[in-house]
């Protein structure tokens, strides 16, 4: 390939990839005995339960209605009896409202088409599709879990030119999007066509990091059948999967501070989201399962599983060979941005793309040394911020200055904490600073 591969310009790091499960086909996980479905799996207002304790529900039945604009509905992922509507600790350990369903059989709603045939013709109109996506509770499956229909309704004076489909998966270990592109590529392409129809645009770009060469080749092959969709391999660099970085890498446009991608005429959706859109629109299937990578060097069988939402993490880890003895941390999400989970009984949520089991010696934080101002964090920050400065400003409570230093632009990619030679917990404090500054701004309104 003579042409230089594209990537974003500023900053970025190259963590070891550890894509252990890239070659493992997706396995369908058997049903657990009980699922716990959290009512707040998305950014925005939590959904309100519409079932009562003791009700019998089917797979795909609406159990909680999203309220307000930025919210998403939640559907039962199993059939069975609602045994509890209560607060359950989520991955942070804090209690959040949830619905617990005991599994009985596997009875699906009648209108869901269970066959795996590809349905290529898009029969619904634009508004019908949008309504379908909203009803199906689809959220961004890359990790942020932002309700997808909100992104598809454009502000009146803005026009989308390009749809970018995010197949970057720059996080170490994770391979769920990679496998999805390989195994459900055609379905995903139809999903992209549906999204293009809703947005009324002709051009879509799939950005894929070059370490997934098989996925790039496969999608390039089939893209001839799907007009308007182009596949772009990208140079491997973290955090390319971040919306703003991906847009810059593919189009050269930079989304200004505190603006949305639509402000530069771009809409970004994840590959898994495109697949979920296909299933919702063509098969009437709401978002009830997703692909989760269960990985870690100490695990016996690291795998990619199709998992029903609400399955306890313990169940996934057991299917991957059980929890190794020397486990130090279990992380939900990717190695860089994921969060340690507090208990293995935490359920799978819509935005959970991976479960990582890390041995004790790998997770131990090294002792924190003073900042030597080596400027590494400034060099690698993809947003052009100064993490070395943001941390002490947060510690000292100088939130006005923090706001001026554009702390809210931080995408929390964790590159600064990763690169710091003094092992300073930069991101931990920057995250705190962001919350405080947001509070400050809200107070001002």
């Amino acid at each position, binding site marked *: 390939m003579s042409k230089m591969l594209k990537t974003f310009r500023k900053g970025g790091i190259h963590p070891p990839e550890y894509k252990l499960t890239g070659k493992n086909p997706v396995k369908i996980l058997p049903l657990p005995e009980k699922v716990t479905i959290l009512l707040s799996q998305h950014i925005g207002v939590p959904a309100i339960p519409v079932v009562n304790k003791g009700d019998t529900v089917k797979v795909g039945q609406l159990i909680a209605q999203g309220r307000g604009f930025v919210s998403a509905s939640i559907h039962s992922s199993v059939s069975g009896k609602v045994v509890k509507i209560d607060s359950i*600790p989520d*991955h*942070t*350990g*804090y*209690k959040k409202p949830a619905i617990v369903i005991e599994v009985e059989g596997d009875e699906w709603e009648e209108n869901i088409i269970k066959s795996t045939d590809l349905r290529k013709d898009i029969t619904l109109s634009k508004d019908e599709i949008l309504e379908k996506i909203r009803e199906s509770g689809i959220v961004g499956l890359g990790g942020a879990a932002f309700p997808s229909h909100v992104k598809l309704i454009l502000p009146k004076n803005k026009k989308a030119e390009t749809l970018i489909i995010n197949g970057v998966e720059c996080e170490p270990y994770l391979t769920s999007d990679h496998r999805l592109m390989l195994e459900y590529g055609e379905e995903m392409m139809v999903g992209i066509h549906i999204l293009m129809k809703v947005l009324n645009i002709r051009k879509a770009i799939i950005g894929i990091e070059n370490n997934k060469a098989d996925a790039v080749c496969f999608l390039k092959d089939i893209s001839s059948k799907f007009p308007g969709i182009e596949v772009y391999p990208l140079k491997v660099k973290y955090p390319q999967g971040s919306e703003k970085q991906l847009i810059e890498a593919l189009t050269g446009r930079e989304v200004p501070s505190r603006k949305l991608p639509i402000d530069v005429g771009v809409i970004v959706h994840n590959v898994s989201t495109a697949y979920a859109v296909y299933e919702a629109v063509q098969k009437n299937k709401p978002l009830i399962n997703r692909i989760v990578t269960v990985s870690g060097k100490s695990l016996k069988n690291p795998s990619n599983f199709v998992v029903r939402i609400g399955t306890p993490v313990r169940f996934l880890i057991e299917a991957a060979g059980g929890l190794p003895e020397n486990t130090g941390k279990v992380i939900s999400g990717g190695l860089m941005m994921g*969060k*340690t989970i*507090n*208990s293995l009984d935490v359920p799978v949520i819509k935005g959970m793309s991976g479960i990582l089991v890390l041995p004790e010696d790998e997770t*131990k*934080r090294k002792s*924190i040394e003073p900042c030597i101002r080596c400027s590494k964090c400034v060099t690698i920050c993809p947003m052009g911020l100064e993490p070395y400065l943001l941390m002490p400003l947060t*510690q000292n409570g100088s939130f006005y200055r923090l706001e001026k230093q554009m702390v809210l632009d931080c995408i929390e990619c964790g590159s600064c904490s990763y690169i710091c030679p003094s092992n300073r*917990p930069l991101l*931990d*404090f920057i*995250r*705190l600073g962001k*919350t405080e500054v947001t509070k400050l701004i809200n107070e001002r309104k």
Partner: protein
Amino acid sequence: MSSILLTILSLSSIGIIAAIILFLFAQKFKVLENPIIFDVEDALPAANCGGCGYPGCKNFAEACVNSDTLDDLYCPVGGQETMDIVANLLGKEAKQTDPRVAVIRCSGSFENRPRTNYYDGASSCAVASALYVGDTDCPVGCLGMDDCVDVCEFEAIYMNRKTGLPVVIDENCTACGACVEACPRDIIELRKKNKNDRHIFVSCINTEKGGIAKKYCSVACIGCTKCFKVCEFEAITMGNNLAFIDSDMCTLCRRCVTECPTHAILEINFPPRKIKTDKENALMKRDE
């Protein structure tokens, strides 16, 4: 000779010109200030702690001078004495305010509250609290990472490493409220300072149901209402499975302390209780 003269002349002329410039600038940028502000500021403790709600003592002095009444203004460090002096200076009336002291409403020491996981992140309660529930299951308990100790300017609070809980030194505490602000879990409360610094309070803010709370921590308030029933002065209120003792109503009778089944109610700075002999116990039983 002439060089000496020249030196004297040139230096003094520089001095005069500089003096004129300084004088002109002083006139131009003169800030008119009420001199009484300085008097008030002198009367204040100059701790600049922010406990009054103003950034510093100067700002508080300005507020005192400019406002009509001193009702909303109170310097917690100086206390009533200082406010009386300020009131005297300004010819205003100072409201009578009871001195207060900070108390830690959590007794979840290492012994009482089982650790369920190990935290190795940044050593800051604010960070840990934003991240997750903490190294025990209790979502409201003390995290023990010195946020309150770090903000205290009066060395009135220290961390007991054996229990993992902060301890307030009542003599030093000025009730400036810095620790109350700093605590992400809101377990520090300012309460009325009683005679001899004695106080009784429910040392728990967990609102879970009894069974769950007890699982988190053996000294949690389980909302059993026993103290509520035993209190003769209506000082105890119940809400959300949690008892609260109103320090204004409490007469420090200590009945609730003995009644509490989980020892969640603490008595501080009381003389040790007399241990009743077997004979007295027998007498009491007979009386009942």
